[in-house]
């Protein structure tokens, strides 16, 4: 069964269209990165998936309509929508008690173990925690839930490098298994590239890329072209060209690797490079 299946998913706020008829299917056991510039519709898409907003079109999450069936869906789905959503008045111990009291798949000992690795005091109120601690607390709560679908919207915002690394490691090692599905959005694309099994680009409410990382690696090629070969490279219809330290870097979609190797150093682009090539261009040279 697909974890998420969307057909013609559409959402508009007045005249502005946040999602313009998006189709996608996320199979169980995948880790999908949903990447897009600000205002691309990522958050709207996730909100629709989580039953937080009504939508047009068809959307099934774990076989349910998320908007009509949110509370049942939430037994099997958990999410961090934004780091700022824990209520400021709640105490750490109360938050743990509450989630333990209402969530059938919450493992209290797991949450306590996560918290033990932080310097968060149980008696603190959320408003007294630093931004990083807030995220750690939220992650401790969410990671202790045995969910089938985990949605992370900018999960590591405000965390330092060490904790971010630790977070993604524990996501992969402790949390992920092939019965779970994870959807992540973040602007720190480089950090999650090695974690993902699939990547989706969203731009102006449309899905502009939806491919697995294996496809990504075979399809896209980046070549650092020797100066004398620049004209030849341009003749092969690259998607994108940029200059780094006076050298030209070309990005190709489905090109012949052998042919490209003759022009310069060939490598797999990063998701960030492809993102800039596909979306940065459409937003003008200023980016």
């Amino acid at each position, binding site marked *: 069964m697909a974890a998420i299946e969307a057909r013609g998913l559409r959402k508009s706020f007045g005249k502005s269209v946040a999602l313009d008829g998006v189709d996608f299917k996320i199979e169980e056991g995948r880790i999908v990165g949903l990447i897009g510039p600000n205002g691309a519709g990522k958050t709207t898409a996730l*909100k629709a998936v*989580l*039953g*937080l*907003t*009504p939508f047009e079109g068809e959307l099934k999450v774990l076989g349910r309509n998320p*908007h009509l069936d*949110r*509370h*049942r*869906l*939430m*037994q099997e789905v*958990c*999410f*961090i*929508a*934004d780091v*700022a*959503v*824990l*209520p*400021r*008045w*709640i*105490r750490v111990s*109360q938050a743990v*008690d*509450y*989630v*333990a*009291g*209402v*969530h*059938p*798949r*919450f*493992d209290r000992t797991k949450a306590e173990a996560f918290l033990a690795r932080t310097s968060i005091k149980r008696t603190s109120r959320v408003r007294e925690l630093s931004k990083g601690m807030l995220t750690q607390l939220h992650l401790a709560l*969410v990671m202790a839930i*045995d969910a*089938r679908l985990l949605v992370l919207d900018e999960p590591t915002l405000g965390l330092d490098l060490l904790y971010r690394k630790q977070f993604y490691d524990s996501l992969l090692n402790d949390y992920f298994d092939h*019965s779970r599905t994870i959807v992540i959005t973040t602007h720190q694309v480089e950090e999650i590239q090695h974690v993902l099994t699939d990547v989706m680009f969203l731009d102006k409410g449309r899905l502009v890329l939806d491919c697995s990382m294996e496809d990504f690696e075979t399809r896209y090629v980046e070549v650092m072209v020797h100066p004398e070969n620049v004209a030849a490279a341009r003749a092969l219809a690259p998607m994108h060209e940029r200059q780094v330290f006076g050298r030209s870097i070309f990005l190709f979609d489905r090109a012949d690797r052998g042919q490209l190797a003759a022009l310069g150093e060939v490598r797999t682009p990063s998701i960030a490079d492809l993102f800039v090539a596909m979306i940065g261009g459409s937003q003008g040279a200023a980016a």
Partner: protein
Amino acid sequence: MNAITQNETQEDNVAMPVSLARTRPFYWSVRRELWEHRALWMAPLVAAGLILLSFIISSFHVPGGAHLLATIDEAQLRETANGFYAAVGVVIALTMIVVVWFYCLDSLFSERRDRSILFWKSLPVSDVTTVTSKLFVASAVAPSISFAIVVATQLVILLIATAVIVFAGGSPGALWSPGPLLQMTLVLLYSLLAQAIWLAPFLAWLIFVSAWARRSPALWAGLVPAAACLFERIALGTTYLLTALQGRLVEGLAHAAFAMPALPAEPIARRDGEFSLHFGMPGRMFEAIDVVRFLSTPEVWVGLAIAAALTAATVWMRRYREPL
């Protein structure tokens, strides 16, 4: 049957090793409200503390008394104590009403203002549970807390009065006659229950506005009924709505719940330039308790129906609510 078997096999296929813990979303939702809105129990406690303090001061403040304890007049003290019992009930009940109204106006507004609605909605708690738990806190939990605090405070007053009389060499027996105390407690309990039912449409309205308003729910909660009354007056030349609202808010409850021809509007009346309380009131009110009359008052049922409709609308609305 088919659906059930299918679900079961699906669950098996998923192979979740964790057995599902038993959850009590309603219970925890209520506790959550008491964590967030501490005024629900702190305000009546503070009111009780102030009354106790004023009682202690006044027990020693007897006219002409330099030798305070020696000049205690037993009858006067009893009257003072009885007055304080009633005052405790009235003051704490009024405090509670004010706190509950603010609580309702805040109940579904603050979670949108501080964006925590996203956290609450990330948990398997239905909108029905959330909304009804708030109405339950406003109409049942808060009155119960007040009731407990009133009874405890009255007991403390009784003990202090007894101690003062005993020290003064008097006999405190009159204070402990169980009849009036029991009657007063029952009157209080009945009043709180009847009030919860009687005011339910107002509380449901306030909770509805707190879910609906994008800003200043307090303003909207008052403005909309005021505008409706004004509209009715100008467009139709009638004042049915105004009369109905006034009747319910001002004296309707006493008329509906107690079989009394005319209850004094103010339990506290001026007498000899001094505040004193209607001494015989608990007994009179106890005899006037009329459950049948209350339950056969059509306004009670109309009010409950309005409360139910507003609550249903609030549940529906919360499904569409997002952070402000």
